[in-house]
């Protein structure tokens, strides 16, 4: 019983991290039609920055904030300096993000070395919590809570604010959005920063669970891609749901059949692609 509960909690926590990572990807893809392959690298940068800040003794909260700011700034620079020059050429943009992700991953290796850097969770969350007579690692509970709050905030941001209205207008019909006076340039940069920041926050919150190590980007990017394809490319609600599905499939797959966990990841994707090629909620408005 304890095994199933623990694994369920782990699944939800991994799902929460994937939610942060993939919703950033989905936001950028939905608005700008850019498949941002630097997303795994941004996640890793977030984890490394958080690790360094936490090690310097500035506290976990500061680590999360700085990781978010750093990745938002890097994302903004990518968008302004490189992707902007390739506007309208989707394939060139993808290839540029791929090149940038190699550069970023190698820079991390130079800066932080090849050994994994563990990130300690904040002191009040480092012990187990007990609930209904079972004990849980309390940090994972906190990650789930953070992910749920992030999902609600994102939803409100998109549905209830002026920025959200602009983004929705841009997703639906960019030329028309421009015609009614929405400044596409500023909108693109802010959405790219927001998406990059979500990936960085995912990395920072993921640090205590996964620790920061070279190759973290290559481990996370395919999970994010599978989540986005499963949920329906560009659909935020689909991404939320698919994050938790993949969280469960991957965690239980790793626990029950460790050799083949990667193959089991396929199954939900194949089922969805066979019956709904646009993804769970693809085509529907999120």
């Amino acid at each position: 019983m304890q095994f199933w509960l623990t694994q369920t909690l782990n699944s939800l926590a991994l799902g929460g991290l994937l939610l942060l990572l993939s919703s950033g990807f989905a936001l950028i893809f939905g608005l700008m039609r850019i498949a941002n392959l630097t997303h795994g690298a941004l996640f890793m940068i977030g984890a490394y920055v958080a690790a360094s800040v936490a090690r310097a003794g500035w506290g976990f909260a500061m680590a999360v904030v700085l990781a978010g700011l750093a990745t938002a700034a890097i994302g903004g620079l990518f968008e302004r300096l490189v992707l902007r020059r390739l506007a309208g050429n989707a394939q060139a943009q993808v290839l540029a993000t791929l090149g940038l992700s190699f550069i970023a991953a190698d820079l991390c290796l130079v800066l932080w070395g090849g050994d994994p850097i563990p990130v300690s969770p904040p002191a009040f969350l480092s012990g187990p919590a007990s609930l209904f007579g079972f004990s849980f690692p309390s940090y994972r509970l906190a990650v789930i809570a953070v992910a749920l709050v992030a999902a609600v905030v994102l939803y409100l941001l998109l549905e209830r604010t002026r920025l959200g209205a602009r983004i929705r207008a841009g997703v639906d019909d960019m030329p028309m959005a421009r015609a009614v006076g929405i400044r596409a340039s500023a909108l693109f940069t802010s959405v790219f920063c927001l998406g990059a920041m979500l990936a960085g926050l995912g990395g920072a919150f993921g640090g205590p669970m996964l620790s920061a190590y070279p190759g973290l980007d290559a481990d996370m990017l395919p999970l994010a891609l599978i989540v986005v394809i499963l949920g329906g490319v560009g659909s935020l609600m689909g991404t939320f749901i698919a994050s938790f599905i993949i969280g469960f499939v991957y965690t239980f797959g790793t626990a029950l059949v460790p050799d083949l966990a990667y193959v089991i990841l396929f199954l939900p994707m194949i089922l969805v692609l066979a019956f709904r090629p646009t993804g769970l909620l693809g085509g529907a408005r999120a």
Partner: protein
Amino acid sequence: MKATIPGLLLLAALALLPAVSGEYYVNLGSQMLIAVIFASSLNLLVGYAGLTSLGHAAYLGLSAYIAAWLALRLGLGHAMAAPLTLLATTAIGGIFGWIALRASGLSFLMLTLALSQVVWGLAYRWTSVTNGDNGLSGLTRPAPFGIDMENSNAYYWFVLSITAVVLVVVGRLVNSPFGASLRGTRDQARRMSSLGYNVWAIRWCAFVGASFVGAVAGLLYVYFHKYVHPSVLSVTASAEVLLSVIAGGAGTLAGPAVGAVLVVLLKNYASGYVERWNMLLGAVFVFIVLVMPHGIVPGARSLLARLKEKRA
């Protein structure tokens, strides 16, 4: 047909390489030729079908792993193992193609990347089959007609003849009616569809063909190194071959070959001086995309055409 004579001359010149250089350069030449075959296979997809695949290392890697596994675990001889490897890899390519072609455009690209990452993860974690991070070693090269291929020169000539065959076959294929319809689906998918062509089937055939040629490259790769490690399946490997195709010029026969030679040269020489191959690869990628989006061969061609115009 006008390319026949220069092609034969080039082949003869390349065949003379072992006469004029030492073993190091002969082995480098074999590696380049394998990269040329691999890039030509991806060119079928990227250049002629307009389908950018970011996971092409999956086919070279799968073929290398299957060949190694058949030889080591089942103890099959080369005469049995080689056709089985090509068949199995092409069949997996057929399945992956079916999955990836459910989507189009950027989603196709993401699916190919995700699929190849799944194979890569499998190579690392399914240790009972793949021996994980240690890789599979202890393989041999085949000895067709009693020729000893452990000799680098013999192996170079073997790879060279297969490269020539592959390039001729790919060249015939893309100039055939099938090649014309393939380019049609790249440029005008909707028109092709209303003319009665089955766009999906044409693309799927190209995908299967590309995975078959990729499997040929994988076999030659595993014979050459007599070892296979999960890194052949990494995104870096997929990116290297995609860079070869795009830097050389997708959709031309010579472009990817030139690109592959350049990438192997760059990797060999640069990695001797700087340890940061990934960073260099990334930087070259960004440079090519920003500065030379059509590649070297088409770029040089238009430059030549402009020079001729000036002279006239």
